[in-house]
């Protein structure tokens, strides 16, 4: 009986793990912003930023300030049309 319940539990755990897709573990905002900075050709020195501040204006434009692990601070502008630009501060 014990081995049967163990087998059932093992099967259930395996099934649960396979039902969760590999990409279900979403990236954090800090990682997302760091990737964006690097994608736009700026050095960051790590995969997560710190000191994130976000502002959104009435027109729908978003301005994000963040500091990379290498100490550089960047301004990320996301226009209402979805265009992203990164400028070092």
């Amino acid at each position: 009986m014990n081995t049967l319940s163990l087998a059932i539990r093992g099967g259930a755990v395996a099934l649960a793990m396979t039902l969760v897709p590999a990409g279900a573990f979403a990236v954090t905002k800090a990682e997302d912003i760091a990737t964006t900075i690097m994608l736009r050709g700026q050095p960051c020195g790590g995969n997560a930023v710190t000191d994130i501040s976000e502002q959104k204006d009435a027109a729908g434009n978003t301005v994000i300030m963040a500091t990379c692990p290498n100490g550089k601070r960047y301004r990320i502008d996301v226009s209402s049309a979805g265009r992203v630009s990164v400028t070092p501060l």
Partner: protein
Amino acid sequence: MMRLISIACLGAFFLMPAMQTLAACNSGTDSTWGTADAATPAMADKTAVATPDKAKPETVKGGDAAMQASVDAAQQKGEAEADHEGAAGTASTERPFNMNALIERIKESHAIGVFTKLALRSDALDLIDLFKAYRQNANHITLHELRARFDGLLLKALALLDDDPALSCDISMAREGIWNSLLEVKA
């Protein structure tokens, strides 16, 4: 005995998805390709399905002699690569793909964040602007340089989608189809 069965079950559960993805990516007879279209049947019906064979004649129509020559060179290069890949490779490059379904899958993927997706989109829009400028002869960029930029952008996308191997695999296999779609961009 039961323990052996449970171990076998665990092994099968963990190995099968990875084996399927690998087999799909290598052989070109993947299930994910079909599921992308099957997941969005309405979209698959509405959107134009671009095939390399269909795209090539349209690409050559409106261009000047120089552009036509460079497009022909690119086509010859593509055909040479396809021949080099062999029968399986040729079959995979000739398969139709659904651009909108791929875009939707990138949008829905959890492998990359929202800002990264927007940055990728910005890069793609910049590339499309370059194609438009190329069509209008507004800049001195060559088709070879455009291809290099396209390959660079695709590599970036594939590297970012490392946690979504099925999508990464499908984008990789749709490379020539995406390139031919970009060649159709009107000025």
